[in-house]
């Protein structure tokens, strides 16, 4: 007797990803697709993908997508959600997008308690433009625009988005996860699923920050990148739930 144990989620289009080897966007895409399938909401889901490596998300997800300008996905998602209040609306944003140019939009979406879910990919660098410093770049981390390492006296220290947003009353559920090993992937999926479930029960703004690798722009092999994430990023950005307003 044969049975299928592992298959492509219906919410994921049958298209090869363009992402670099070792990039973790693909893992997160798959987790989102699995969650949307499991919740049975594919036909009422609208994703919002702004500028960044994941701007081509509309090629990979098998549901409605609105491509958005740099940083503005939470505002665009607000427009979509207000028109379609019964739909499942999420934004998928990188750290340059969300933590830098789009800082105002994410803060105010949270402050309004906008009933959307944000998946925030933090890889401490601008990926699409080729490895520039982001607000999330670690102190002393070398990027193309911090070639001598991020100097905290001149350009400050990493912006901890989950910690910051968890101080906002309108935020319902804020958690930071990683997808560096199977155990953390399972935790990431559970958090993402919870964030979508809370949206669908009308409970308010949820954000899941996913620590993610960028081997190409970090100048590492995929294996080295995972190790670097574990050694350097997780200590700066501790994993866990930062806010669960209605939590147990």
């Amino acid at each position, binding site marked *: 007797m044969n049975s299928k144990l592992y298959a492509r989620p219906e919410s994921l289009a049958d298209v090869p990803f363009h992402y670099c080897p070792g990039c973790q966007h693909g893992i997160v895409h798959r987790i989102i697709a699995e969650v949307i399938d499991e919740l049975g909401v*594919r*036909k*009422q*889901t*609208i994703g*919002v993908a702004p500028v960044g490596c994941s*701007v*081509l998300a*509309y090629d990979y*997800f*098998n*549901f*409605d*997508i*609105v*491509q*958005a*300008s740099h940083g*503005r996905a939470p*505002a*665009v*998602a*607000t*427009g*979509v*959600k*207000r*028109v*379609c209040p019964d*739909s499942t609306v999420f934004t998928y944003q990188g750290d340059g997008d969300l933590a830098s140019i789009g800082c*105002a*939009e994410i*803060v*105010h979406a949270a402050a309004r308690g906008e009933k959307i879910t944000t998946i925030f990919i933090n890889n401490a660098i601008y990926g699409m433009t080729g490895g520039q410093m982001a607000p999330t770049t670690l102190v002393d981390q070398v990027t193309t625009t911090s070639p001598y390492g991020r100097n905290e006296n001149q350009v400050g220290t990493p912006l901890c988005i989950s910690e910051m947003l968890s101080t906002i009353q309108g935020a319902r559920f804020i958690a930071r996860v990683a997808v560096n090993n199977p155990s953390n992937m399972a935790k990431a999926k559970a958090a993402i699923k919870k964030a979508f479930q809370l949206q669908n029960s009308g409970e308010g703004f949820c954000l899941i920050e996913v620590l993610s690798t960028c081997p190409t722009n970090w100048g590492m092999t995929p294996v080295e990148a995972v190790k670097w994430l574990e050694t350097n990023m997780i200590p700066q950005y501790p994993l866990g739930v930062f806010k669960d307003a209605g939590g147990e």
Partner: protein
Amino acid sequence: MSETRLMKGNEAIGEAAIVAGCRYYFGYPITPQTELMEYMAKRMPQIEGVFLQAESEIAAINMVYGAAGAGARVMTSSSSPGISLKAEGISYCAGAELPCVIVNIMRGGPGLGSIQPAQADYFQATKGGGHGDHRNIVLAPNSVQEMADLTMLSFELADKYRNPVMLLGDGALGQMMEPVNLEEKPLVPQEKPWAANGQGERAKPNVINSLYLKPEQLEAHNIHLQNKYQKIMEQECRWEEFNVEDAEVIVVAYGITSRIARSAVEMARRDGLKVGLFRPISLWPFPSERLLTLAQQTKAFLVSELSAGQMIEDVRLATKQIKPVHFYGRMGGMMPSSREIYNQINLILKEKEAVK
């Protein structure tokens, strides 16, 4: 509601938008358009619509982008500096072909400028405003009644062409009160099979997008847009004429300036001078063909604007300068009097005499 009411221009836009079926408004406070926003804040909850004060002009236009992408009739409004902030979002709406209405109640510039009426955003409104080869349909009312009528038309044209429409007024029109009659029209439900509002029963997901990484595809998309703009230019030119048939000088003015110019033309006629008025109502598409015809029968044009001279470039292009095109403008919130415009008309006519 079909009785005549006394309303501010800004409020008339708001009520007309509601009559036109707009149920979503996103905006940010800025003088001299704030009454429109406040009107929507009051009215939208009464009709189960959505009013949302955005955190910024940028957020407001992106909320418009999202709501339009989901298939709604949606509007935002601002004034000059705020429109500059919205420019990127307007370009995205044009690129993704999203119907929406953007109101600009112009004030003096550049920079923070003033809060007094001006018409110095003509270039920005009609030549794109955002980046890339795109056009907004631009309508310029000259009365509170027309603020209402053209608002309703804006929503129709936006949906018809899947294109942003800008209603271009100024601080005077926005603030002044006049009688206005808002005629209820039966709303035709808009079929928007392209909207990203959840796949539902559709066979395939919809994508709202303006990104085309392959140059062949982006060029094809641009050609498609240009073909649409061509069709708009052929079908949507609107203007008004007054005493142009035998006019030796035709004053060209739009919006609030056209009302002052009309008084000047009436003064001139009373003095036996052959003067007329040409008022573009659609600034883009610009009524060029008709102006060229008039150029063949008149002796000179006088363009009057609340700017250093912006529409005058379109008048020169339209008339191929086969007749002289003169200019009289005021800036920074200053308004010309009808006497000032009359004096300019006189000067032009005297020069013509002298040449003879």
